[in-house]
């Protein structure tokens, strides 16, 4: 897929590092993203200075991608480059900070891209605190020119991390179900894209109905539901080879799959004689172990990040509610007690929260609650919002929204949206057609 990016451990030339180490008093240029509706930080992201026409183009495109990433996060306001008073060429030593204070930039990103003899490019980036006049962080990459976009996302990740203290998520991807056609003959295809919608690619042809793709936390593999041969079963999709593989031959429908944190198991539902129970499949032995045993519907399982517990939904109490059990199926307890129905619980990668879909008063909301069911917060509400997925840093959720049209099955709009954990910065994720069932990838792995 994406080629590997070589990370050079020596981040910057010794001179710059020396300056950084010399500044004893560390600037507290930090965004506290636990607060909702914060004032976004003004940041100047300059074009990467280049030594020839080809690298200059890359240098400009990379800056565009970084600015777009930061802007979309809602935490930054990139300042229009036309206001900049110092040019990239003159920024290859310490910036003239007064020039950046004049345009109210709090942080400044500078950089360089140059062609190497072997056809690769070398990209260097530095982040500065304008008011404290301090170097904050830097990174450099040597990589094929075709990796410029990923490199830009990784730099945006580094900026986000340095200024918020949280991991960035700009180098992640999203798998989802692309939808087209009228509602009664809907065509659904697996599709994958960068988190900003670029590098979009269809994975399946649309001949079979496909639903609920989920990313492996450790490998370039998806698990999903396919109606291949009119038998709804859980499958694996290998993103490196394009190979699709059925996950066991069972007499009944298998559905609602999700990987365990190790990536070695898939937890899913299987229906037998009309009753849906939760099972755990070991991907190495392909053995299925039954975890629930109740005549109610038990489905939509999701592991805790430490692998010790599983949250799921069940109507065993009369209505669809959220439960937690130990990973071996024991110690089942209900955690949601609000009015209405709760479904699709998804455990946060940080472990502290569970996101869910709530149905109440004819509306579908996306919300979060603590793992003991307390402190429920609704982030967005409307005719139909469903299926939250967490960004790997646990700060942003993506979900899908159906906006009803004219009752003709052709004018509905189904699309992907993202929202901060605080409930702010709700934005549509642009896809080529309609989209549903998003699933965020794990963080980009520099070492793979």
């Amino acid at each position, binding site marked *: 897929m994406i080629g590997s990016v070589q990370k050079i451990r020596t981040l910057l030339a010794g001179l710059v590092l020396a300056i950084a180490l010399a500044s004893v008093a560390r600037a507290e240029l930090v965004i506290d993203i636990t607060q909702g509706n914060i004032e976004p930080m003004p940041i100047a992201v300059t074009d990467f200075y280049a030594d020839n026409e080809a690298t200059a183009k890359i240098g400009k495109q990379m800056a565009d991608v970084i600015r777009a990433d930061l802007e979309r996060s809602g935490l930054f306001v990139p300042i229009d480059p036309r206001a900049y008073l110092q040019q990239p060429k003159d920024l290859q030593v310490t910036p003239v900070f007064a020039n950046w204070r004049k345009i109210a930039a709090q942080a400044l990103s500078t950089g360089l891209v140059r062609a190497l003899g072997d056809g690769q490019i070398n990209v260097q980036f530095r982040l500065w605190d304008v008011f404290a006049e301090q170097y904050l962080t830097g990174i450099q990459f040597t990589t094929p020119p075709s990796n410029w976009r990923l490199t830009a996302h990784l730099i945006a990740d580094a900026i986000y991390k340095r200024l918020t203290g949280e991991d960035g998520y700009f180098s992640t991807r999203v798998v989802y179900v692309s939808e087209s056609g*009228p*509602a*009664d*003959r*809907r065509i*659904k295809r697996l599709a994958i894209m960068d988190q900003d919608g670029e590098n979009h690619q269809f994975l399946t042809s649309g*001949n*079979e*109905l496909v*639903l*609920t793709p989920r990313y492996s936390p450790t490998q370039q593999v998806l698990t999903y*539901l396919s109606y291949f*041969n*009119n*038998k*709804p079963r859980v499958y694996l999709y290998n993103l490196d080879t394009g190979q699709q593989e059925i996950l066991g031959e069972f007499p*009944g*429908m298998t*559905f*609602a799959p999700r990987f365990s944190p190790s990536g070695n198991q898939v937890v899913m*539902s299987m*229906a037998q*004689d*009309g*009753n*849906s129970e939760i099972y755990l499949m070991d991907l190495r032995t392909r053995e299925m172990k039954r975890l629930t045993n109740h005549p109610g*519907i038990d*489905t*939509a399982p999701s592991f805790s990040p430490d692998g010790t517990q599983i949250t799921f*939904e069940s*109507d065993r109490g009369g209505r*669809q509610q959220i439960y937690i059990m130990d990973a071996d199926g024991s110690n089942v307890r209900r955690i949601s007690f609000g009015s209405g*129905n709760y*479904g*699709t619980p998804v455990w946060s990668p940080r472990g502290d929260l569970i996101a869910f*879909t709530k*149905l109440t008063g*004819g509306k579908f909301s996306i919300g979060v609650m603590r793992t003991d069911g307390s402190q429920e917060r609704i982030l967005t509400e409307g*005719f*139909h919002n*469903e*299926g939250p997925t967490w960004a790997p840093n646990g700060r942003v959720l993506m979900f899908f929204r*159906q906006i*009803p049209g004219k*009752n*003709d*099955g*052709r004018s*509905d709009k189904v699309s992907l949206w993202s929202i901060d954990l605080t409930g702010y910065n709700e934005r549509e994720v642009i896809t080529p057609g309609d989209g549903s*069932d998003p699933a965020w990838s794990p963080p980009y792995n520099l070492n793979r």
Partner: protein
Amino acid sequence: MRLNLGLKTLSIFTALLLVAACETAPTETGDSSGGGATTQTSGSGSTTTVVTETKTTTVQPGSQEDLVLNVGDRVFFGFDKYDLSDEAQATLQRQAAWLKANPTVTLLIEGNCDERGTREYNLALGERRATAVKNYLVTLGVSADRLSTISYGKERPVALGHNEAAWAQNRRSVSVVN
């Protein structure tokens, strides 16, 4: 697969005509139809004529068309329910008798839901509905070997509106001749 889908669409369309004529209030279907041919169903008088004509001309015993026109291929469920109403039981009693009269026929029972539920839950609920139909047919003496089930959850609506009238039509099981 593609051929199957084509047949299914045809049967659903035919079934809609029947539903409109016999069971459903005309105002509902007008609201929920997908345009094109199905708009005919808004007038129940003309629909009955269509059904009668079809009945007397081309129906082959033991076919899907036969099931739709002379027996009824579908039953409906309440919101988040899978129990069989008296009306549903009556339809299935006719289906059981029809299966006895056509001993080589096997059925796929498709369970469906309205859009007012989450995707995974609706898959499970559709399976419950299809199985409720299968189990009832078995109690009426139909061999379980002749009956298979599939759930489409909320993925295959026939009525396209976003209102109770449309949802009531989509909470259904449909028996399809294999």
